[in-house]
């Protein structure tokens, strides 16, 4: 313990303080609408972490958050703003839901699983390719283009799932159900699917890539000073495309995992909006892969607990997103105290 550098703890402390402030402000909001905040938060803990169901659900929900965060780590570390993870997620999920029932019949299980996951990654990458190339070639603001592509994706998947890839045997607009034996396997002795392990590996691999490899070093130079990167002979255009493609690929992978492990099919109106959680999360983690792990656990707990408590206390589950937005604002404010 004595080797811990106190200065290194300051960032963590600021992130935790931001979360505390947002919980306190959230409590005040609950008071205003006439709910008992202490009751709400104690029930949140009891439902989210007090039962084995809650803990399992919380851990399951960490998988997509960690996978998407891994992608965001790589592009944010290069100063690239992929705000449209929702679109890449949906395209990955849609492709998986469409292709998995066909591939499962044609390929042996392990190859099928890898093929489907790769398909999800490809979907996410394809979806960010246009913003990436436009950013690299024409310097078009990627915040706008990724967001616009996200809206395109939301409408595109709805259209596809109602028509071209619809399972005609069912009434709702959805793809064919993936048979249970072709879902993603669980970690032995648990209900938790291996997406959690994929998430951990993605996260730590990305962290290592950013901190220890040439590519990661070039990303960090780009973040610090794009001109300097260019003068040092780095191919900024190519790095831009790489950084964004990596983040899109991970978002697509998260979509594939959710369809393969949890949903079992793809529905047109399904959009879990993980971006709203993952973006604040990666900032709070200060682009540190290790810090993403406890934070995903916390935000996933909030989401799961929030869903449970919504039914008991009549506090809409949107409240969790309110807390996330406030956390990001308090975190932004805390930046000031670091200067």
């Amino acid at each position, binding site marked *: 313990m004595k080797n811990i550098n106190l200065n290194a703890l300051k960032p963590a402390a600021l992130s935790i303080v931001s979360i505390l402030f947002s919980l306190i402000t959230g409590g005040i909001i609950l008071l205003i609408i006439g709910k008992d905040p202490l009751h709400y938060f104690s029930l949140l803990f009891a439902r989210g972490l007090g039962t084995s169901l809650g803990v399992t659900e919380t851990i399951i929900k960490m998988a997509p958050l960690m996978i998407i965060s891994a992608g965001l780590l790589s592009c944010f570390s290069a100063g690239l703003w992929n705000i449209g993870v929702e679109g890449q997620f949906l395209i990955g999920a849609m492709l998986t839901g469409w292709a998995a029932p066909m591939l499962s019949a044609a390929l042996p299980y392990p190859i099928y699983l890898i093929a489907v996951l790769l398909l999800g990654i490809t979907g996410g990458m394809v979806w960010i390719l246009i913003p990436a190339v436009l950013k690299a070639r024409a310097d078009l603001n990627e915040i706008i283009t990724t967001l616009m592509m996200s809206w395109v994706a939301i*409408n595109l998947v709805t259209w596809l799932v109602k028509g071209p890839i619809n399972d005609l045997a069912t009434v709702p607009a959805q793809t064919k159900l993936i048979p249970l034996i072709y879902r993603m396997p669980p970690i032995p002795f648990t209900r938790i699917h291996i997406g959690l392990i994929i998430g951990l590996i993605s996260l730590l691999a990305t962290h290592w890539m950013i901190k220890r490899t040439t590519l990661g070093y070039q990303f960090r130079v780009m973040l610090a000073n794009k001109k300097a990167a260019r003068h040092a002979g780095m191919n900024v255009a190519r790095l831009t495309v790489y950084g964004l493609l990596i983040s899109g690929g991970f978002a697509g992978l998260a979509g594939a995992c959710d369809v393969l492990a949890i949903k079992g099919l793809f529905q047109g109106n399904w959009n879990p909006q993980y971006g709203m959680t993952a973006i604040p999360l990666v900032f709070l983690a200060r682009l540190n892969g290790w810090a993403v792990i406890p934070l995903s656990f916390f935000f996933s707990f909030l989401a799961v607990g929030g869903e449970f408590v919504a039914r008991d206390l009549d506090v*809409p589950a949107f409240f969790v*997103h309110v807390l996330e937005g406030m956390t*990001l604002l308090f975190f932004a*404010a805390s930046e000031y105290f670091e200067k």
Partner: protein
Amino acid sequence: MNDIFGSALIAAIIASTIRGTTPILLAALGETYAERSGLLNLGIEGMMVAGAFSSFAVALNLNSLFYGFLSAAVVGLTLGLVFGILTITLRVNQIVVGLGLTIFAHSMSSFLHRVIFGNQFPILFGAGGTNEIPVLARIPIIGQAIFNQHWMVYLTFAMVPVLYGLMYKTRFGLRVRAVGETPLAADAAGVNVNRIRYYTILLGGLTASLGGAFMALGDLAFFVPDMIMGRGYIAIVVVMLGQWNPFKVCWGGLLFGFALALTSAMQVAGINISPDFILMLPYLFVIVALLLFTRSTNLPSSLCVPYKRGADGK
């Protein structure tokens, strides 16, 4: 017969172009000033949702459109002030603050909507409606389309020349532009950089929120949390297309209003394409328009750069 149908369709498209342009243009006009002074406000989307929700909830509960618009104005100014305190006074990252504000304002509106209305989406009777301008409204075809609109539409388009004049013909406008280009020089010349930036972000918050309020009270007469559908971000694109000049911004806004109007006209005309497919088009259109018309080299030099007195200006 065909002729009458054709002119009716044209009139309908003109009318819906103008109606669709209004919220985007209103938000874009405020953002023009904010960006000119060096502030990129990604919170517009959230401010529009908050304006739409607060105006709708208040108008429904007090049964008064006036209080509805008033509450949207208060909410917009408040959110603008929050953005200002964080980015101007505390000098923290504008992109992070903007995203945080959008997530917060959007989910807060959805949350309060559920708390107040449960799963219901009531309709506000008496909202919408148009104010006909005498004489002009009797011009064939375009008269009814242009001069029989909600009063906010006239207000928005009237603001374009006013804000143009303010930007290019007054000392205040000169200061806004100076503060966005070289705050150090502006400061040396005795301009209070941060105060100017507070003015522009308050204007930006106000117009964004009123743009949302127009959608809820002037156009649709109901509120659903996802009704803004990216219009806040489209407003930012319109500002870029318009090169931070209110008149050009107005043309940019009309371009998108036209794209939206064509989208709905295609649906009404019963062209055999799924509406979900047609709904993608305006967003693709944004990307194409950005690619064709923007030169990022014209950005205000100090966009996204906080100003600190006594620092070396970089």
